[in-house]
Structures are given as structure tokens and as C-alpha cells.
């Protein structure tokens, strides 16, 4: 199988080792380790998973099994401005689907993808708990409430460089 290999720098390997060590290299801490690794690298490329597997002494297949089980973990780098559209029930009945469609249309990417320039990525999340503001969209840390499809272009414009 051909796949792009990302060579990890020694520094990065050391970072992963450090993370694993901070959890005493315990296999039971796999999810906590992956959280921290994703926080550090932004995503979990195969190579990171391989180092984690080796450090925690678990098969890399198992690590991959865990990574692909949880929607929070991603093997694709997120965009510089990750867009998260809440598709919780409250947002859904107030039109989140249309807002999501508008983002997809404008950026020409699907959910879980990143634009080719690496600027935006779209993901869905289930209820951020701001149901009073439904539908809710988050771009990075910033929350937009009562978003309508018409607002999408303006929101994206805010991130023009």
C-alpha cells in the first residue's frame, strides 16, 4: 500500500516519548496520550501512532483501532481555521443542515476534509451546549450564534488574510 510517509524529526519523537512517559507508559492511558499528542501535533499521523504504540507496548493496529473509533481523533491535519458546525438536535431543527451545506459549497470540501490551502476544515460536532444560540458554528475558538446560510460568506471573509 502506498502511503505518504511523514518522516518524524527526532525532536518530535522525543516529544511523543515525553508525553508517553508523563503517563508512565501505561497502555491504559492510551486515550489520554493520544489526546495530548493530537493537541501537540494538531492531528495523529500514522507515524505518531507508531511511536505511541511502541512506547506503550501495544500493537499499532490497536492504536489505529482506537484512533478510528473516536470521532475526536483525526489523521488529517485540520485547517488553520477549523470550522465546527454543531449538528445537535436543537441546531438541527433550527437549520444547521443548511448552514453546513453552505460552508461545504463555499469551501468545496466535505465534512472531515481540509481545503487544499490548509486554511479551513469542516467538522460536525454534537451539541456544544449553546442551544439558545442555535444554530451554532465555531471557527477555531470563536463561536457564532444564530447563524443563517446567508451569514456564511461574511464569516469566512473574517479570515481573509
Amino acid at each position, binding site marked *: 500500500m502506498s502511503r505518504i510517509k511523514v518522516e518524524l524529526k527526532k525532536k518530535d519523537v522525543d516529544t511523543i516519548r515525553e508525553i508517553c512517559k508523563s503517563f508512565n507508559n501505561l497502555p491504559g492511558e492510551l486515550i489520554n496520550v493520544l489526546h495530548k499528542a493530537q493537541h501537540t501535533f494538531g492531528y495523529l499521523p500514522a507515524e505518531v501512532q*507508531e511511536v505511541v*504504540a511502541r512506547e506503550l507496548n501495544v500493537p499499532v*493496529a490497536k492504536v489505529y483501532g482506537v484512533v478510528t473509533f473516536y470521532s475526536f481523533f483525526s489523521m488529517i491535519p485540520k485547517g488553520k481555521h477549523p470550522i465546527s458546525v454543531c449538528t445537535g438536535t436543537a441546531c438541527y431543527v433550527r437549520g444547521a443542515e443548511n448552514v453546513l451545506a453552505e460552508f461545504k459549497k463555499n469551501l468545496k470540501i466535505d465534512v472531515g476534509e481540509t481545503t487544499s490551502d490548509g486554511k479551513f476544515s469542516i467538522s460536525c460536532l454534537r451539541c456544544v451546549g449553546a442551544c439558545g444560540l442555535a444554530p451554532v458554528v465555531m471557527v477555531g475558538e470563536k463561536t457564532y450564534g444564530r447563524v443563517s446560510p446567508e451569514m456564511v460568506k461574511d464569516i469566512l471573509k473574517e479570515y481573509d488574510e
Partner: protein
Amino acid sequence: MEMVKLTIDNKQVEIPKGTTIYKAAKQVGIDIPVLCYMDLKDLNIEHKPGGCRICVVEVEGRRNLAPSCSTEVTEGMNVKTHSIRVLNARRTVLELLLSDHPKECLTCAKSGNCDLQNLAIMMGIREIHNEDIAEMSTYRMDTSPAIIRDLNKCIMCRRCETMCNDFQTVGALSAINRGFMSVVAPAFEMDLEDSVCTYCGQCVAVCPTGALTEVDHTRQLIRDLANPNKTVIVQTAPAVRVALGEMFDLPAGTLVTGKLVAALRRLGFKYVFDTDFSADLTIMEEGTELLERLTRHLSGDKTVKLPILTSCCPGWVNFFESQFIDMLEIPSTARSPQQMFGSIAKTYFADKIQVKRQDLVVVSIMPCLAKKYECTRDEFKVDGNPDVDYSISTRELGHLIKQANIDFHSLPDEEFDNPLGESTGAAVIFGATGGVIEAAVRTAYEIFTKKKLEKVDFLELRGMGGIREATLDFDGLPIRIGIAHGLGNARKLLEDIRSGKSNYHAIEIMACPGGCIGGGGQPLHHGNIEILKKRTAAIYREDANKPIRKSHENPYIIKLYEEFLGKPLGEKSHKLLHTHYVDKSKKIIYI
């Protein structure tokens, strides 16, 4: 034992506490259909994920149906195994499984031997509702040198995952993804070939559908047999003769050596040889290597590494090449009997019959899937031409004999051809766990002590224990032997060695339960250890019946050294009969 009274299908029964409904029903003659469930009780594996939901039964007072494989009986329980509710649920669940399964039974390798197909027949499924709108979960097909993964046929029983992780501790496979797209695969959905897979084939052996099958070489074989320019010769491994009969409904443990030879001859092989011959050769090389290391060790040479580990099992070789790379120095460098045979056949024997290497096709019949991979290794090729061209499994051979409409039962007993067909009892026992080391001891003892071994049966080395050890008396010198079968047991043994917890002189390891007789290419034993025990008994019967029972007494082996090889561990042997190991973990971790 505390007993529990309950009712199953209106039968009053008394069953020990802690028994599952499935087993309780079985005890009173009610066979509840199961699919994902697998009980390898003698291997300490009871796989009951409760995933397929085929075995559900109705329990009075319970809100929903209970999976009988994993629900324990309780006092006063009233179980119905075939109420309308149960039958409807079971049928609906099966239809759901089939709705996500390719309907290509006619061309499926498992056809006729498929648990899912059997259930569909049993329940009389005639249509799948809303098939036109039913999306299928589809995956990339993966063909490795030994195993084909066609995951479109995976039903998520997870048996392979259990074998690969819990029993073999290889960890090549894991459930991945979630929901409808969940499936069992190697990390990153890479090819099996790029993973830590050892090709032990235990996953194939337990797969209830056609999702995991062996690479089929029989078509190639038929083509080669029909080619007038090729001389096709065959070698058959010791474990094949004690299991092939099962493919023809003979009881487990039936010895069919003579019929096997006859069948192969009728299939058109020019020479029918025996891997047992090269097993004797292996003992000469490996035994000598053991003695050499032992002698140097005893004389205080600190550079010598002990224990020596056997190296005839290719699954095991793959295992340590990817998981115990710090111990690559310990295993014997002797090639496996399959490869020694190929090497000798394409040199010594090819010269003898004056056939060019390229025109000689060496086929092996093996109880093993890793052998398919082993013969593709670059170390075992000369100018790109492999010593062994390909290997076919016991199962494939069974199918081939049927395909050629040879009536196996009425075949006469025939003898192997010479010179590569003569073997001793020591070679036959290679097929059972403990056998290789016993064979080695028979020879090493006599060479080391220069005394005749009176009692050749080392019962202390036999048995089904996962990890066994024994100390043998080499004329005053205690020799510590370790034996493991199943890679999970091997791992434990190796970790003990690594940590310095145990010190053996020699260790035998076989990847499969029971050794080669339980190999991934054998007729399916479905975890029934009684079958494995019967095959083992047949192996030792064959040994006992052999006139010569020590490898170094095989006249053709003696002749081979005289005419061709010189001496064990000599220059020629080194080139033709030994190998080196590579660090395969590099393939897996890129740093």
C-alpha cells in the same frame, strides 16, 4: 458444585452454576445456532463477544432476547430457544448480515465450508428485503503471499482478532472504524504484507466466511503439471499425512502416508518426495550448531549466545524478526526443512536427473500458510528462481484430489521416491510440538556423549502444555530444554529469556497450537483439541513404526554428506542450508 434448576424448551434440567444457556442447552441435546461464538477450550480461548446475535433465546421475564452464548443460567430460568419471537429475530438478524455480504457463493473459496452459508441454508433464506437500496460496506482487497483478505465478506465475528491478539499476541489485526464501516484490519489498513503479520494462518483457520482465505496455488500447479517442459516434484510435510484423511471424512488421526503418495503420483508429479528427508538434514545442521554453541559455551566462550532456538517454523521466524529484533542472534541459522529440501532438490537432485534449475518445479504440501510466504523470501532464491516454487496447503491438496476425481479411499499405499524420500522417525515428529527438539536430542546426545542412546522416546518433551520444560541428562551434564507452541506462549518464554528469568540451552517454538498438526493450512479443527491430540498420536505412531529413529542414521543423509555436502556446518552446508534473519520492525516503524 452448585447446581441450578431451569427449564429449556419445556425440559427440566439441572446444570452447574456459571454455565451459559448455550452450553446448558447443548448438554440436553438442544443445538442453538451460533456464529461469532468460538470455544477453543483447551487453548483457553472462549470467544463470546455476543456480537452476531444469532444465538438469541427468549428468557421468561426478560425485556429483550438473551444471547445464549454469553448469558449464564439462573435458578428457575425458563428458556425458549425456538419461539416465534426468537425465530423471527434470528432470521431478521441473519438477513441483516446477508444484506451486507456479497452473494457470490459460487465462486467463494469457503463455499461449502462457510458458517454463514450453512446458517442461510438452515434458515431457508430466499430473499433479502430492500436489497436494491441496501448499501454494502466495501473494502479494498488485500492479497499477501499467503493470505487473502476480502473484507467485503467480513461479518465482524472478531474471531481472527482474538486469535491474532489474545492467542498469538502478534497484534497484526484489530477492529477498526466504527459502526457500519467497522471491520478487522491491520493498522492504517495497510496490506498484511506490510504489517507485523506472521502468516501463521490461525485467523484463516477460524474465519467463518470467505473473508480470510489462503492464496490458492492449485491453478498454477495444474498448469505446471501439464507443461511438458517442466519436471514437477513434490515434498510433503510430516503433519500432512496425519490430517489429510479428514478431508475425505476419515477419522482424525488416520495415517494416510501411503495413500498420500499414491494420490500425488496420480496427480502427475514426476517424483514424490518427503520433507521428512530434509527434516533429518535439519537435525544434522541444527543439532551440530547446538553442540558447537554448547561446547564453546561450556569452555567459557562469552560471545556464545544460548539458548539456541529452533528455526524451522516460518511463522515463528516472522514473529521474532518483527517483534524480538534484539534477539536475532539466538535462533539457529538452519533453514527450515521445506527450504533445505528445495535447496538440495535444485542442486544435488537437479544435477542427478540432469534437469536445469529453471525447468525443475519444486512444490511443497504444507500444513501451513506461512510456508507460502517462506518460499518467496529472497534469501531462498538463486538468480530469481526460488528453491521451492510454491507451497500448497493440506486443504488445497484435499480439494485438488477431489477435483481430479481420484477416489482417495480406494488408493493403494505407495512408497516415496528416492533419494529424497527416505526418512527416520525423528523427522516425522517434527509435525508435533516438542518433536523437533526431541529429534535434535536423539542425535545430539549420541554425538555429544559418544554413547548410544538406548531410550529414544523422550516423553518428558511431549504433550499439549503451552509452555513446557525439561532437563535432560547428557551423561552427567544437565541440558535444560524449553518448548512453546502458539506465539503467545512463545512471547512469554522469550520475555523470560530477555529478562534473564530463565536460562535454557535449547528451545523449540512452533507458531501453531499443537505444532504443525494444528497449522493454519490444515483441515479445520474448529478448536477441537481432541482432533489435535489424535493427529499428534498418529505422528508418534508413525515414529514408533519407523525402523530408523535417529536422523544421523538416515543412510541417504549420510550419502548426501559424502557425495555432496561434506560435513554439517561446512562451507557448502553454510551456503545451501543456512540463512540469516532480518530486522523486519524497520518496515513498520519509520524513525
